[in-house]
Each structure stands twice: as C-alpha cells, then as structure tokens.
C-alpha cells in the first residue's frame, strides 16, 4: 500500500472540513448573545434621515405602515418594527398597518405589538391600544392592485375593513380615531414599509409622489433600496441590523441631525435597546468570520501555488 503524501499547509488551509466551519459559525454567532457589549457606532445618513422624519411627525397624526415581514427576518425586520412602534407610541402617533406580502405577517405584527404592550404594562407605561392608537387592516394578496387603489382613493381601498373597539365589538376602521381624519393617501404624513421582499419596488412604483415614503429593509435589500434613497424618492431608510442599531442608539443617546437636536427617550422602565443591540455583536463576529474564512482560503491557495512552482 503506497504512502499517502502528507498535505501541505496550503492544502490544509484550503480543505477545512465543512462541519468544522459550521461549528465555528455556531460558536461565533451564539457566544456574543450571552455577553452584551456596547460597540462604537456612527449612524449612517439614511438612518438619521428616517429618525429625523419620525421625530418631526406631528403628534396625533396617523402614519401608514406596510408590515411585510415574518419571523424569517426577525433579527432585522423585528428590530425595525419594534423600534418604529416604540417611537410612534412615545410620540403619540397613530399607525394604520396593513400587509401585502405574506399571510403570516398580520399575526406576526399583532404579536410584536402585544409583546411591546407587555413591556409597557410591566413598566406602568400607557399601552399602544388597538382602535385608539393603531388598527391592522389585514392581508391584501395583491400588492400591485392594493397600492394603486390606495394611491387613487384610500377610503375605497380600505372600504369594509373592520377593527375591534375597546368594548369588544367590531366597527368600520374609518370610525376609529386612527383613520377618521384620513380622506386621501396624502393625509398620511408618512408611509413606512417594513419589508423583506419585493413589495418595496411596488410601493415606489405606485405610491411615490402621493405620500412621503420611508423604508426599513433587510441588509440583503439594502443596496437595491439605496438607489431610491439616493434619488430622494425615500425620505429615510433603515438597512438591516446596522440600521436597527443606528435607530436604537439614537433613541437611547439622542441625536443631532441637520441642526435639530432630539433628546433621548428616558424614564423609568423605558426600553430603547432591543434586538439591534442584542444582535450587533453577533453580526460583528459573523462578518469577521466571513473575512477570516476568505483570507484563509486565499492564503492556502497562494501557499499551494508557491509550492507547485518551486
């Protein structure tokens, strides 16, 4: 039996077992979850513009929220949704929520608001109440048709939708404090889309120019959505986990944007830091591991080439 030649260092570096890689990834992404640390951060311009817009909305107004995310992107979209809802509830801004991407999304959004309300209750802070502060209009299977309808006549687009009143009975959503003053889409001072899917393009195509648009998208969607921010079709943009961390930091530390100073949200039981802060160290480790993996693979290739030329 012939001796198998020993692998060179270059070959070894290029042939790390997949299971080993996966194990390292599990460790790198899990361990930071148990050691929360504050990492230095500079909020990027799209996040700051979004925060500025949210913080300058008139109190008592209603924003239109298209919630198109489910738990598959909970780390990013969930953090974005929670941060958005916290800002809206603290600034006494109402939210009209609907979904145009996934039948699961309405229940996910309702659960997220219920969870936030539990935290509010625990801190003896006022709840964000259905009917008075927010309504969810449910799932609209056709994003295209619904967006065109909203742009043309929001009253007809949402006609017949019902929500539960505090006394437990259902009534037309346009009788609720959230929508009673809304007659056209331009009555919303802002529409925010939280999405992990292509509905962002549909919103731009069908609603740009009719209502100010802002988006909270996953990191993967960041580059394609940045195009619309650069062309000023979006008034603000939160991209991925970094975007969540930016918003949470501005809520926690306050922000100074374009000459305007926004104080931090403070008070007993006030929670500003959530999923973004919890997962940002994990993102660091995962990205670092990605860089190390690419470097190791390439070093292995160069060592092997060097050896073969010798």
């Amino acid at each position: 039996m012939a001796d198998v030649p020993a692998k060179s260092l270059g070959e070894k570096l290029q042939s790390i077992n997949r299971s080993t890689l996966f194990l390292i990834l599990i460790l790198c992404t899990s361990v930071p979850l148990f050691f929360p640390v504050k990492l230095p951060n500079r909020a990027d311009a799209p996040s700051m513009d979004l925060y500025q817009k949210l913080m300058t909305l008139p109190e008592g107004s209603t924003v239109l929220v298209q919630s198109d995310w489910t738990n598959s992107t909970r780390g990013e979209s969930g953090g974005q949704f929670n941060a958005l809802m916290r800002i809206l509830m603290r600034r006494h801004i109402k939210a009209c929520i609907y979904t145009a991407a996934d039948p699961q999304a309405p229940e996910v959004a309702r659960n997220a608001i219920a969870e936030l309300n539990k935290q509010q209750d625990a801190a003896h802070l006022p709840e964000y109440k259905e009917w008075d502060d927010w309504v969810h209009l449910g799932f609209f299977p056709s994003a295209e048709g619904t967006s065109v309808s909203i742009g043309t006549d929001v009253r007809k687009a949402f006609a017949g939708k019902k929500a539960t009143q505090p006394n437990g009975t259902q009534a037309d959503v346009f009788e609720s404090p959230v929508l009673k003053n809304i007659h056209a889409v331009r009555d919303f001072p802002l529409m925010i889309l939280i999405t992990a899917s292509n509905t962002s393009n549909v919103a731009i195509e069908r609603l740009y120019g009719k209502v100010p648009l802002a988006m909270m998208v996953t990191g993967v969607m960041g580059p394609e959505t940045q195009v619309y921010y650069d062309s000023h079709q979006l008034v603000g943009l939160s991209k991925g986990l970094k975007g969540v961390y930016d918003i949470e930091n501005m809520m926690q530390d306050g922000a100074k944007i374009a000459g305007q100073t926004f104080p931090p949200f403070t008070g007993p039981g006030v929670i500003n830091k959530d999923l973004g802060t919890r997962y940002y160290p994990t993102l660091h480790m995962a990205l670092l591991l990605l860089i190390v993996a690419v470097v190791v693979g390439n070093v292995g290739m160069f060592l092997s080439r060097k050896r073969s030329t010798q």
Partner: protein
Amino acid sequence: MNLILAQTDPRLNFWNGTNDSVGLWAKIIIAFVLGVLLIAALTRVPPQFRRVIVTTATFIAGFFYIALWLWPEPIGKKPGTLPNGAVEWVGFNISDAVSVVGDFYNILATMLLGLGVFSVLRIHLRKFVKKQQDWGFSAVLLAGIVAMVFFGYANYLTKFGPDAAKLADQANWGFVNYGQNLLFDGMLQQMDAAMFSIIAFYILSAAYRAFRIRSVEATILLATALIVILSLMGLAASIWGMPVDALSPHVTLNGQSVPDPGSFTQNFRLENIAKWLTDALQTSSLRGIDFGVGIGTLAMGMRLWLSLEKGGVSQ
C-alpha cells in the same frame, strides 16, 4: 357606470349591503353560486374559444391600467362632484373603478392561493390514500394543514369575539388559543426563522471555498466587499478612523476639539469610503441594471398584454 363602479359613493348600493344583514348574505350566496357556475361553464368552453376569452380578458385588464396611467387624473374630486366634459367623465369613471379592479385583483390572488392549497391537497391526498413512496410525509403535511386551519380559524373567532379584550391576559386563554399559539408561534414561526438562518452556513461555506483572488476583477471585487463589510462593523470602522482622525485638522465644537468633518482626510474614514462605493459605483450600476430590467419588463408586458407570447392557454 358610476352606480356600478363607485362602491362607497353612496355607501350602500346594489353591490354591497349592511353588515350581517340577510340581504348581504343573500347577495354573497348568489354571487358565490354564480361564480361557481361561471367557472364550471368556462371549463366546458371548447378549446378554440378559450384563446378568445383569455386574450380578451387579458387585453381589457391591461387596457384599464394603461388608461389609468395615461388618462388625465381628476384633481380635487369629491363625492357628488359632477364631471365637466367627456374627458373628465372618463377620468371620474376610471378613478371610481380603481378600487373595484383592485378588489378583483385581490380576489384573483386569493383564488390563486386557494388553487395552490387545492393542488397540494390533491397531490398529497392521492399519495396518502394510495400509500405511495414517502406517504408518511404527506400524512404529516395534511395533518398540519387541517390543524392549522382549525386552530387558526377558531382562534380568529375568539380574538374578534366579545371576549377579545380578556385574551390579552394568558390566564383567560382556552384550548384553541393555546393550540394556535403552539402551532403558529411555537412551530411555524420558529421553523421559518430556522430555515432562513441556514443561509448563513451556506454563505460561509461558499465564501471559504469559492472566493479566490485569481484575477484582477476578483481582487477588485474582494477589496470592495471587504471595505463594505468592515464599514458595517462599528468597531472596525472606529479603529480604522483613529489614524484618520489624528491626521485631520481639528475644529472646536461645543468647547471640544474634534476632527473637522469637512476636511479632505475625513474622506478616508471607512464609512465614507463605503458610502462613496455605494453611492457612486453601486447605485449607478444598479440603476443601469434597473433600466435594462425595466425595458425588458415593458417588452414582456406588451407581449403578454397583446397575447403575442407563445404557450399557455392563449396559444
């Protein structure tokens, strides 16, 4: 025309009714029966006439949205406003019809979801009944569908019922609420998240095995990717920024000496390099791609609208 299309002006007309009224339920049942009869009739249309029906429906549907796009939009239209001239009359009717067509669109999309469920049920019921290979998986799938529909709908009824407010407290939950919670939040949502997180493993494995600097192009790609990745890491950006800040001229702001954000050297901060890459290179490239995709979509849309595309029922 306005009577047919305008659903809410007046709010009650022939096409709707008071919530839970006998009249409304009668209209729903009649519409359902007529819908079933229409679908049954369409399935019996001879093949040579199917093309005519499909192309006509496609053309009308496409024409509506083209008319909506091109026809002058009525400005400041309120309920009860009368049109001034033929052009505005058409504009009013197109505007009134948008929500009705949007509802049709939603109903069709919902029917497609139903069609998908029907197809899945048919395939897996057959597999289960005939005990074909892996029929056990089909049984699990069928049980999952039935359980989810049952608990989902029962939970929906309690959540929107008279005792809905009490359900905020978990102590008031019943069997169906716990069942829905287990199936939707406890299983479906967690599996959804788990499936998506698997991508991270494949990305890492692919990056390690395939991302090699074998050419100038690959080197440029790797360098730009590295800068963008590092810019997302606040810690890396902060460390990189230390020498840049030290080399930058300083200004006094609120009594503190800080690097002048407008100085030339600040361009070499990691986040600023990444911003330049994204704004100058990536955005313009994506716009170019989007233009190409847009033109392709327009051409494809025209072919579909005019039923020039080969294949399918329209052939």
